[in-house]
């Protein structure tokens, strides 16, 4: 089978890879490029563990083909922290115990970051609707919503 050569940008850096035509972007990111932050929970668009942004839009990378990434810009959870410093969302998830096993966390962080870029001050129900496609089986959603709200306030410069 002929492999496809793909050139794309991940977290601002140009990368290239070879993949078979049916390979998902999720598998290409994890197995060819070493970005193992995005997880496969379901592989069918239901759980959001594989969330990344593709040309600025939040998507399930399990429902994107690797070949579609040609010329695109992708952001993954690996792009959140700068140097040794965690993103306010990441710090808030730790401080507010918004993760247990952590499988859902990378997808939720990427999704929450995309929300706060559009809406720096979302209400509880706006956060819940935005994150409806991100399933968590252990932490419970209340802590996740709270962690997003606290990070949002901090990013608006409202709390210490």
């Amino acid at each position: 089978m002929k492999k496809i050569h793909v050139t794309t940008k991940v977290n601002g850096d140009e990368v290239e890879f070879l993949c078979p035509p049916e390979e998902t972007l999720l598998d290409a990111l994890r197995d060819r490029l070493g970005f193992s932050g995005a997880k496969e929970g379901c592989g069918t668009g239901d759980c959001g563990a594989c969330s990344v942004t593709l040309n600025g839009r939040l998507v399930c990378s399990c429902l994107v083909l690797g070949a579609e990434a040609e010329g695109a810009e992708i952001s993954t959870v690996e792009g959140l922290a700068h140097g040794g410093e965690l993103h306010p969302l990441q710090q808030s998830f730790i401080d507010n115990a918004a993760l247990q096993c952590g499988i859902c966390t990378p997808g939720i962080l990427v999704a929450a970051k995309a929300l706060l870029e559009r809406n720096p001050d979302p209400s509880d129900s706006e956060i819940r609707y935005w994150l409806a496609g991100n399933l968590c089986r252990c932490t419970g959603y209340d802590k996740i919503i709270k962690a997003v709200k606290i990070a949002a306030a901090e990013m608006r410069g409202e709390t210490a």
Partner: protein
Amino acid sequence: MQFVTAQSTAEAARLLAESGGAARVLAGGTDLLVQMKSGMVEPATIIDIKKIPGMMEITEEDGGYRIGAGVPGQMLGEHAGVVALWPGVVEGCELIGSTQVQGRCTMVGNLCNASPAADSVPPMVAANAVARIEGPDGSRDVPVADIPAGPGKLNLKPGELITSIFLPARPKRASDAYLRFIPRTEMDIAVASAAVSLELAEDGSIAHARVALGAVGPKVALVEDAARAIEGTTLDDAALDALMAACRAACSPINDKRGTVEFRTQVAGVLAKRAALIAKDRAGEKQ
């Protein structure tokens, strides 16, 4: 399997025709990739149409809007002009899946997946939206209502694909609405749904209406009797009762664990009534 990024609609149509049914168009992939994963479809060729010029664009045309076949739901919802003119179509499209699905899912993919429960289809039918089709014999325009042929089946000829959806112009005092019933508040498939589009006369009565139902038959149904039941009225109780009765008479749903025949039929009427009231309020606010 082969993956092709089509550069033109002519190339996409040629590849589709040459494949003898073994090729699939890829728009947002939120149905296609799930079906490939489960082994339900095994295409020999995948034709990505999103890089064809115009596919990711929304353009004004004759007072209406042409929506490219690659435009995702979220982008439709960001377009103030479309939201103002056809709010019911936008709300149907925005109900598809999660935020992640919204980043990819298209109205055309929703239509071409040919599910009777597809959320953007009833409002497109109520809007009298028109699909532009390109194929080996050139281009033709077909009302969206005439595209579905039954569950999983379309009235498209070999080699044909849809390149855009046209949402027409409408008078100032006109609007639309879409409602669905699902057992949860998010991320579920409609058990019954209804879309109503209407235009108001000078005196505030309904000059013209179109009513479409989803998930209560083998394909989305335009219910002419339901529209006639409310035209000339101000949506008084008698008119709303007649609307509900006409909708229920048009239902032939399946019976399954998600909804009985009786339940789906009952709810379709209620949803049509509520959608009609919302559409009338929206139209009234525009004067």
